[in-house]
């Protein structure tokens, strides 16, 4: 009989003795339709199944000490997303990865497990940028007009987007055609962007202050081409998440 690692005595150990661990995972296929909150619950159960000695909060319904770097939208796939957990003892990272991979579902894979040095800020607050790949769900290439339009849009000095003036709307002061839409130049927040026949790839700001949605850029390109873009036709894949280190972008598992 296995009695689980999270023993009561251990649980009350000093918080300082806990080890922070970062888990990088990928998510592909039908499981992409599991939304963020449900996917968190999925991970909590997987961690129990793998018998990882994760730390729990105190109280009547203890919960695992776990936080995701950022939410993944329903229908979005990822090659690299992250969550941080706290465990009670220094883990064998390779073993933890294998044990987790043995108890996840088709389409989910643990890519790596890293122990975080003391004082590493948590994944959520470190995210600075995200890489994306967008392609057509019907498997066809982007057509020539779109490729040519991308050339013009991505090589111009500005990237002007229009968005709803939420502030005015909230205050009930939005007037149609006057102040209901605001314009913004996001060029400085788009670090890399390229559109080939197969896919549109980009590296964009993902910080809470300047977050850019990749679909917004693709919409600009389609608009330039004089075409309507139905977002439902496009599959989004997140390629990785980055933090900043000495003015450079490095992936979140690079610690």
């Amino acid at each position, binding site marked *: 009989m296995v009695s689980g690692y999270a023993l009561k005595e251990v649980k009350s150990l000093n918080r300082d003795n806990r080890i922070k661990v970062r888990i990088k995972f990928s998510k592909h296929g039908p499981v992409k339709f599991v939304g963020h909150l449900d996917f968190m619950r999925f991970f909590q*159960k997987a961690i129990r199944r793998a018998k990882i000695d994760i730390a729990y909060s105190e109280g009547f319904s203890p919960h695992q000490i776990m936080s995701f770097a950022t939410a993944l939208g329903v229908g979005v796939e990822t090659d690299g997303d992250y969550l941080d957990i706290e465990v009670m003892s220094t883990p064998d990272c390779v073993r933890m990865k294998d044990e987790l991979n043995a108890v996840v579902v088709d389409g989910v894979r643990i890519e790596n497990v890293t122990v975080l040095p003391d004082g590493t800020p948590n994944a959520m607050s470190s995210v600075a940028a995200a890489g994306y790949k967008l392609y057509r769900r019907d498997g066809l290439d982007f057509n020539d007009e779109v490729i040519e339009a991308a050339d013009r849009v991505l090589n111009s000095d500005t990237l002007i987007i229009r968005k709803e003036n939420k502030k005015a709307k909230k205050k009930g002061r939005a007037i149609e055609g006057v102040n209901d839409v605001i314009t913004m130049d996001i060029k400085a927040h788009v670090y890399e962007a390229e559109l080939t026949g197969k896919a549109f790839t980009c590296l964009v700001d993902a910080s809470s202050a300047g977050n850019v949605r990749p679909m917004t850029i693709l919409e600009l390109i389609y608009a330039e081409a004089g075409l309507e873009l139905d977002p439902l036709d496009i599959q989004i894949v997140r390629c990785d998440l980055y933090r900043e280190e000495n003015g450079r972008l490095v992936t979140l598992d690079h610690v």
Partner: protein
Amino acid sequence: MRRQALSDRILMQVDKPARYTGGEYNSVVKDKSRIAVRFVMCFPDVYEIGMSHLGMQILYGMLNTYDDVWCERVFSPWTDLDRIMRDENIPLFALESQEPVKDMDFLGITLQYEMCYTNILQILDLAGIPFMAADRTWDDPIVIGGGPCSYNPEPISDFFDMFYIGEGETKYRELIDLYKACKEAGEDRHSFLVKAAGLGGIYVPMLYDVAYNEDGTISSFKPNTENVPSVIKKEIVKDISGAYYIEKPIVPFIKVTQDRVVLEIQRGCIRGCRFCQAGQLYRPVRERDVESLKKKALELLNNTGQEEISLSSLSSSDYSKLEELVDFLIDECNDRSVNISLPSLRIDNFSVDAMSKVQDVKKSSITFAPEAGSQHMRDVINKGITEEHILKGARLAFEAGWTRIKLYFMLGLPGESNEDIEEIAVLSDKIAREFFDAVPKEKRINGPVQIVTSASFFVPKPFTPFQWAPQDTKDSFREKAYILRQAVMAQLNQKRIKFNWHETDVSVLEGILARGDRKLNAAILRAYKKGCMYDAWSDTYRDDLWMESFDECGIDISFYTTRARGLDEIFPWDFIFCGVNKEYLKSEWLRSKEAVVTPNCAVKCNGCGAAAYGVGICTERG
């Protein structure tokens, strides 16, 4: 990666797409080239409700232990997807293989409540299976019903090839073998059905003819084919501890109603509450061995990673080793940071102590189900508890720190007077007084007492002593709710009592369907064709369409609801033997009229008839 039946485009447009994509942890995918029989198990309601049902998980697990069988699942598509599937002609599919339900060998539908009947038609419709069993060929799956509503299958008899009467663990292997043999021998579908009817526990409606008297009651019910039994005996598991129990329950991605591991500790109930159908259907009581339950609990937690475990039974307090089991769970679960939920416990010293260990008294509430307010009515329904029990239990809970109490009552019980109804308010008030008496002012740190008094409307059910009882009318239900509300407002502590009651319309429909006969098939089909679906959901329930359908089919609803039934009337469900016999039910009905209580099986055997199965409490008591 598994191919999906629905395009990403559709999945992006519907609410909770993970209802339809399958692939949950512990869901079973087999190599179909090595499978002889494809079975799809259906719960005709939305995924979150269906996935919370223990019985379906047990049968799913059991059927998948057979190497030659692959059992999959299907639930009712929610109304958003329903519309898309009709518009785009997408056939209903099983979750695991994502292949059409129509291509399966068996479609098993679990019937947990009457209000799902139109959803059964939705399933058949979307699957492309003819509504009428008589119109089906070998190209269609065998449609088989099971669960509590199959104890009166007559209102939906046209839509099913067969009903499995009783506990699913016993006959499926034989049924599947018979199916394989008939197919191999090239026999026709009808001859398979006739042979299946001989297996025992299998009711094939088309093999029986019903004749009616002028007043609409049944004059005779007979097989129309040779070698078909005239009485169907319910199947039960003799060795409950040795019977199959789930090993690896499916762990849903989305939050379902019962998002936890469920441990069935016993089957059946010793109490003979006269309104309760489950209490009669599942007799005799059979307990699971406590040692194997302990092992099972850990196995299930390990295999699922669930953070909560719950005990399941009709009356957990009657399980003889309850303390031992609960103590064990409290120990183990504490170590694993797993929550325990202990439903259907009688409130006494032990349970209050146990619950205060597993729940936060500040956040949780304690539930009592006195069912009736006056002692007279509690005797009529044979509830077997007194006001003293209830007040003592409440006091224990208050002393342990609880302040929130939920009370469940029924309105419209046979022989109920206005005073009986007012007693519900009086009892609620007495409980509030008990609080102020038990907890001195300085100790009321969790705030003052809050009582929620809920009333549902009584619906008489087959195989209960009240199967003869007239059901109240809609107006009478409303009037009684009003009387009770006035009575609550007249109480000293009325500010501390919150009163709510259930919908009246659905209680009437439930009453029609529960004691209905074959004549209702046409009305149910008509209601479905008019757009009725998800009748158990108040947002989608269309009382007007239902009433129109009954009208158009010439159905007088009072025949099924408010009519007083004669003692010797042949009921549509009389051909089923469930252990408890009609004579016994009749004597209980007569005793209820005198408000005479009948002791429970643990005190005394009353010879209900269930001893015919020769197991459980009937034999153990010696």
